[in-house]
């Protein structure tokens, strides 16, 4: 699948095919930003206060191995967590009636 096919698929699935290209770009960009943010926030929500402080230290070093150990230890079911958040975000985009954070 090349870039154009990916774009077409995404635009179709989002239901914004009839909108101008600039508007499509705007929507995809904004949705992607929300996805990134919500996935990150949901990981942080799983951290204890102590773990968040520890993460502060890790961010200054950027050592991949330590970050991996930290996340594996503190966010054991990351896959389910990320997948669920993605789904929530995308469903919220479609429906708008149960937006992410409404229950937070």
């Amino acid at each position, binding site marked *: 699948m090349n870039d154009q096919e990916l*774009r077409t698929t995404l635009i179709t*699935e989002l239901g914004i095919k009839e909108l101008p290209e600039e508007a499509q*770009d705007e929507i995809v*960009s904004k949705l992607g930003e929300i996805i990134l943010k*919500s996935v990150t926030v949901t990981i942080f929500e799983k951290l204890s206060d102590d773990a968040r402080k520890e993460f502060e230290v890790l961010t200054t070093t950027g050592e*991949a191995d330590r970050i991996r150990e930290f996340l594996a230890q503190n966010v054991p079911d990351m896959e389910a967590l990320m997948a669920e958040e993605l789904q929530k975000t995308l469903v919220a985009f479609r429906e708008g009636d149960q937006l992410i954070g409404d229950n937070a």
Partner: protein
Amino acid sequence: MDKLEQKILESASGGASPSSIGGQILEKGLGGIKRPEGPTTTEGTSVTPEEIRAKNDTTIVEVMQDVLKTEQQQRGGRGRQAGPELGSAIQSALQATQEEAKLMESLQNGGGFVRGGTEAEQAIEAIINNNEQEAAPATSTEIVATAPKEQASQSGYSNTMERIWKENEAKRAAMGVGESGAGLELEPIAPKPVQIENIPIPAGEAGPHLAVPAATEQGPVTIEGTFTKIAGTEIVPSLNTIDGPLTETASEKTPEQLKQEKLEKIRAKLEHMTGAVEARAEKVGMTDRIRKIGEMWNKVPKRYKYMLAGGALLSGVGAAAVGSAIGVGAVGALGTALRGLSGAGLFVTFETILKVAHEKKTGAERSKAVETRHVLLAGLGAVAFAALLPKIMSDYMGSEAIQTGAQGATGAAIEVPVGASKIEYVVEKGGTLWGGIEHNLEAKGVFEGMQGGQKTYVLDALKDKFATMSPAELRAIGITSGNINVIHPGDHIDLTKVLGDTHLTADITHHAQALSPEQIYSIEHPVVAQPTAEALSGAASIHEAAPMSAEILPTDPAIITAAEEITHNYVHETFGTKGFLGIGAQDGMDSIDWKDPDVGFANQPVEKVLAAHPGAFPDDGARHFGVEDYTATQKMQAGLAQVQQETGVTPHPTETVVDYLKRSAITTLSEQAHNEPTTYRT
């Protein structure tokens, strides 16, 4: 007259036997009966609706509606097809009701007596014959009449009719409705309107799903949305109804106005979603971090934004239907690109976490589908966390102030670095200068629409610019060896001098676009051991050398064993995985990149590996290994270049990688052991 016909008459007359019915003559049979005005209206009788209600609490219309309702429930969720079927059933039901009413009318006369006789029997027989000739759904009369005959295979429809028949008989008996059934008549009841919105709409395949039935006379059609079942997950709504609940009404708005309205609605929704996630971020004290993610995201090239959002959908964790045309391999290719976007370190971090957790949980290796999902989630996680880790962020695209709008020779928008912004490539294990340039240009979309040979031309031309620099100049930009073919992990190479020259890159891409098919072919199929091959490989060169003669083969078992161990260690470090706490570890010798008989490096000729340039984003979308995989080939090429650089041993033209590595090790060990040069190196 048989028993069934008798039963019909009993039903119609409230229990009277044909023999007790007398008097009324049917005019011209059924054809002479005046058709009621409404579906359930009877005319020309002396009995009021109230009187009928008192005697018969279940009208034929109600019976039919009950039957239809039951029938519809039994069809349960057959989706859109229920529409025409239901409409047909309703029409038949109403027709049946009319026929019943006509029969009743013809059997009754003004004085409340039901007439019968030969003519009545003939009329009833005509009804039966008529009904038998009609296709399903049958009239209620026919169903009641035929039910006993079809006991063994009767449908829910028949069962319902049978049940209702019995219930009505019991009611009649309880209410004392006379054997004569005199005065029975139908109360006019309008048919219940059909609730179209209650008909389930089946989920569609990938693509536009906004199926809107035509508006009916009942008024606007409302669709609550469509639903798609993703294998192995709960049912989730698909994203094809962004409008949310739709009410199709006549609108005088222009298409442009409707589009604008839709856009404004989506904008408002996205703003609300943004506000919600920021509120959550504030609760966990990460407002600043969320802002950084937003800032970083704004710098991400457009095509990657589509990849990330599309990847979320295609991974199956989103909510969209994934068409069969979109394969696992395609998603894997997205992962490859996202890996480059976020930086390999963070990407591997997330992928390893997901992989280890999965294997620990299931006790089994990942399937391709799971691996694909992990790749995409790792891409998302890596990009998000890149914004949170200043050091990593500065190492990758986050440090590049990117502006859009410049037009490349391909005609596609190229996102180029702003003037003085530094374009840096941080070398990781297995990295090459060629790979660093390629990664940078891929991120900017420079290669979009280019064939492999054109892409190679661009990369080679840019690499040649670095090749013209002196060792001192190369060291000044971060290549610590002073040799473009020997770069080390940890080198921070400043590519700005070449890649930051937008005129140069535009000129080169323009020339690449102008290449003839023959030129492209010759680039894609280089002659090995020619200078062009050396230039294109970006790694070690191959020198013609005579095969190793038998008399100089090493015979010291200790050296051979040590050389094999060195080779093993090298391969393991390059292609093995340590896993997490040992879980998921794999010896590099067992990796598919190394040992696969077709594409594994072990038995590939060195010259083939050095000349290989698999795309980082394969057109076929499939995942590749060994000499067909971008990352693995980059590693192997860098490794071979390093071995040649450090041992000085040159590969033979047809020598396989494993043989070359062993010979290089043997050569070095032998020279160290004897403290003198050997002839093994040639």
